[in-house]
Every structure is written in C-alpha cells, then in structure tokens.
C-alpha cells in the first residue's frame, strides 16, 4: 500500500514537473535585435508610410503541448518611434499622436490564445497606447524554432494586426484613408 502511494506520488510529481516544463519562457532577442515592431499607414490613400519602434522588450511563455496556455507580454518605449524623418518623428511624439511625455510606454498583454493549427494562432490581448487600453487580436504564425549555433534555443513568430487611431484617442486628422494603422511584429525569442 505504502509503495502504491509512493508510486502514485512519484507519478504525480513527474506529471506536474513535466507540465511545468512544457511551458517555456522566451525573452525577445533585444540584444542581438532579431525582432522588430513596424507600422504602416496610408499617406493620403496614395502610398504606404512605414515606420517602426526601435526600443521594446518582452517575453513569450510558450507551451507546445497546450498552445492556449501560452502568453505574450511586450512593452514599447513610444519615444523610439522612427519614420526616417526627424521632424515627423517629433510630431508623432507630441500630443497630436503618441503623447510620449505623458505616456512613455505602450504595452501588449495577451489574455487569450486560440490555436488555428499549423503554427498559426490568434492572440487576443490588451493593447495600451496613448493611455488607452483596448482589446486587439494579433494573427500570428510561427516561423521556426530550433537550436542556434551559439548554444541557445530560439523560436520566432510573425504577427499582424490593425488598429484604429481613434480607438486610442489619437484624433489628429490625417484624412479618411489614414484612420487605420497596420502593425507587423517580428519576434525572435531566446529560451531562458
């Protein structure tokens, strides 16, 4: 009897530890910068204006066995906005757009992940931008995963979403063709 309890206990411990181990934490490779947060918005409806945020960080908790138990956390320094034009960047940082002195960080915290198979998933979470938090869904694709040549293990994703500027209290009138911003996120995480 005692032995049976021991065996069950050992099995239980093993299950729990393996369950705990199936969730892996990945840190975004900020140091080597194998990650980017890019945006694009239409200029007058005639072309795409692209830019990016240069300073951000985050973690991904990835559970291969039950992807829905995974989570994503990203914070962005809004002052790092870069559209390759200093005077426009200055304008993007002021009260008309990102209001960076009042809201220096933007963040995304996942709340729900729905796996769609073949490495695809919909990640819903709270995006906080310009002091406004709103649920957005990022469509993600796992690009790949594996050992790197330097002794680490990496996993990378691509994600896209679109947001309406008005939803985040950004009301500067750029015209009817420029009310939505499309975000493209490329993230490579290093397993911790």
């Amino acid at each position, binding site marked *: 009897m005692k032995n049976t309890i021991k065996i069950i206990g050992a099995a239980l411990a093993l299950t729990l530890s393996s369950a705990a181990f199936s969730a892996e934490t990945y840190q975004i490779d900020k140091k080597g910068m194998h990650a980017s947060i890019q945006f694009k918005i239409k200029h007058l409806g005639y072309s795409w204006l692209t830019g990016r945020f240069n300073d951000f960080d985050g973690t991904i908790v990835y559970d291969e066995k039950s992807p829905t138990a995974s989570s994503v956390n990203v914070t962005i320094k809004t002052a790092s906005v870069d559209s390759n034009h*200093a005077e426009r960047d200055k304008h993007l940082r002021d009260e008309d757009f990102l209001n960076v002195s009042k809201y220096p960080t933007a963040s995304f915290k996942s709340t729900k992940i729905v796996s769609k198979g073949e490495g695809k998933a919909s990640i819903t979470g709270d995006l906080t931008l310009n002091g406004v938090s709103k649920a957005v869904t990022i469509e993600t694709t796992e690009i790949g995963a594996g050992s790197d040549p330097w002794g680490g293990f990496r996993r990378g994703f691509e994600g896209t979403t679109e947001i309406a500027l008005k939803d985040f209290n950004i009301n500067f*009138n750029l015209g009817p063709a420029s009310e939505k911003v499309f975000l493209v996120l490329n993230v490579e995480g290093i397993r911790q």
Partner: protein
Amino acid sequence: MSQFKPSQKILHWTSGLTIIGLFALGYWMRTLDYYSSWYQTAPEIHKAIGVILIAVIALRIILKAVYPAPAPLATHKPWEIKSAHLVHLSMYVLILVIMTSGYLIGTADNRGIDVFGLFEAPALFIAFEEQEDIAGFIHEWCAYLLMGLVAIHAGGALKHHFIDKDNTLKRML
C-alpha cells in the same frame, strides 16, 4: 541728438520685424490642419527665412562690434540704462540660441534645409541623440521668452517716447 546710423536702423527694424514675423508664423504653422495648403509650405518658409536671418544677425553683430550704438541720452537714469542693456544682451543671447536650436531641428537626421530653392543649408556634424526633441523644446520656450523681452523692449521705447517725451525712440527711426 545722437542718431543711430542708417545701416543700424535698417538692420534693427528688418531683423526685429522678421523675428516677430517668424514667431507668429512658427506659432501658426503648428496649429495647421494636415489638409491645409500651408501645412508643408509654412514650415518651409519659416526655415528658409530663419537661415537667411542667421546671416543678417551675424552681419548685425559684426557691425555692432565695429560701430557701437550711440551713448544713452543724458536724461536716462542709471537703472534704465542698466536694464536696457540687460534686455538687449538677453535678446541677443536668446536669438542665437533660437537660431541654433531651429537649425538643429531642421537638420536632424542629417537633412539639409532648403532655402527657397536657392541653396541648401547643410546639416552640421554635431548630431546628437533626440536632437529634434531637445532642440524643439529649447526653440519653443526661448521663443516665448524672447517675445516677453521684445514686449519689455518695445514698452521701454514707448515709455520714453510718450511718458518721458525724450528722443530714445526717435533716434532709431
């Protein structure tokens, strides 16, 4: 009475009115709607006139060193002379700071400033982090400060003209 030289009068009034005009233009252009036809041209004009003003102010400072302003009127009180000098010096310093910071906003990202299609003022080699934001902050607040001093300067001239009824203003006309 000791008049200012014609060259000093011309430089005083042209640079003075240009500076007030640039302040008004700079304030107005930042309130423009994206679809205003002035949205792109107003800043271009502001920057081009600003670059030309740098040359005018440089000339003014050189001429000031060669031909100093006439001595204060005998009726001027010591506190009036002192405060007038302090305001003049502060205005010169602020103008130099505003022109430098304006230049640094316009040339951030290593872009030159186009001056009415005539030539391009090049970016300087002193680029630094967050250049357009730091320079922008300094440019804006020094401009407000300068306009305060301009009001004191003009108020002083009007006080001498209408209250003291002396020739302080007339000798610059």
